[in-house]
């Protein structure tokens, strides 16, 4: 289930709206690394839109994300599914809500998650080029497309699941505004972040499974 985290890898740079008038921070890998290193915490909501050929309307999911350097993460879907991934100090837990209670999602392969989360740490540093899972290509803004990193799976078996990922930079240094996940012949999943807050203190409990 390593692919489940393909997008989470990218998310951890997340979201922005504020701007600087200077040259873009995403001109090169070194600039990206330096900018990412200055982002210590993020809290944001997101809207995930999935298009499918058999649906006239896209499928919309909503959730929240929290990140705290160096590697604490909360990725929570609030609708229509209620699922929760929390990572704190290297401990990974995935839960689903059923009949009003959070229960462990036993189908998640946590060992695989740990491997991929190791990759995330590289990405949190803005260090895309050291990834062993994806080959990164820096794409400057052109032809109506915003500047982004394109990630192509190195492992052919992963490429059957995710053909490529586009991480779209925001203007605030070290952040992204959206992520597009492409599947071959299967449409795209678009994750857009809104209302991000940077640098605020996030309590430990946000990265723990809920008490019940």
């Amino acid at each position, binding site marked *: 289930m390593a692919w489940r985290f393909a997008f989470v890898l990218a998310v951890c740079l997340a979201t922005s709206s504020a701007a600087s008038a200077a040259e873009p921070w995403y001109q090169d890998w070194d600039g990206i690394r330096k900018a990412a290193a200055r982002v210590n915490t993020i809290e944001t909501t997101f809207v995930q839109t999935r298009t499918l050929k058999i649906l006239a*309307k896209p*499928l919309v999911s909503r959730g929240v994300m929290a990140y705290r350097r160096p590697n604490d993460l909360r990725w929570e879907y609030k609708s229509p599914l209620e699922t929760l991934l929390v990572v704190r100090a290297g401990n990974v837990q995935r839960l689903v809500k*059923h009949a009003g209670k959070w229960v462990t999602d036993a189908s998640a392969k946590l060992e695989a998650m740990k491997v991929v989360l190791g990759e995330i740490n590289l990405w949190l540093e803005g260090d895309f080029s050291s990834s062993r899972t994806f080959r990164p290509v820096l794409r400057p803004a052109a032809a109506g497309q915003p500047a982004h990193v394109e990630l192509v799976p190195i492992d052919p078996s992963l490429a059957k*699941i995710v053909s490529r990922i586009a991480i779209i930079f925001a203007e605030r240094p070290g952040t992204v505004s959206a992520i597009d996940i492409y599947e071959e012949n299967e449409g795209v999943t678009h994750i857009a972040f809104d209302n991000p807050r940077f640098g605020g203190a996030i309590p430990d409990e946000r990265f723990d499974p809920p008490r019940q």
Partner: protein
Amino acid sequence: MTRTCCLSPLLLLAASCAHLPSLSPLPEDATAATTARCQQVFPRQPWHATHTIFATLPFGQNSELLGVTATSPEGLHAVLLSPEGLTLFDGVQRRQGAAGPPLVVKRAVPPFDQPAFAASLMADVGSAFLAPPGAPLAVGRYASGDSVCRWSPLANETTDVVLGVAGTKMVLTFRNLHLVRQVALVGSGDDGFFTEVSLTVPGAGGYTLEMRLVDRE
């Protein structure tokens, strides 16, 4: 769900006796109305629907997915998505008599690529959302008083649509006289779309799928 739980032991007991639950006849003037009510528990084609699916699998494993189902001239289309939107399974069960293989798997990633999975999933979806073809072979009552329409779409398979006296609605599938699938339809059922559909496959390798309606077209 409470109603489902109350009915289940009775039905499983009936099935364990390796014969179909017997039907007593309805008054002749009630048959047509009962048949119509049985057919109304299924959505009228064509349709698209999106459900959340909570799966309780053998050995207590739980998982939650999104399911998109649709009927079209091509047949029955089912797509399973992870919460993150990734396609785990995409298959089409072609209509009887259509050219080509009856079941086309367009995409299946582990563990949804097991050989028997596609056929089982399509049978599950078909049981819950597709009316058996044609008119029922029999319309009657169980000993409990529940009204029943009975079809036999395959030689060794029987489908009972059960309209409970307490308002419950179920679809039971028997194969070789054994209950192999039980679908409980819960909620208002507007146009054949119920707010909750609970499907149980009994037995050692059995599982339960609890589907909640998100959207329909």
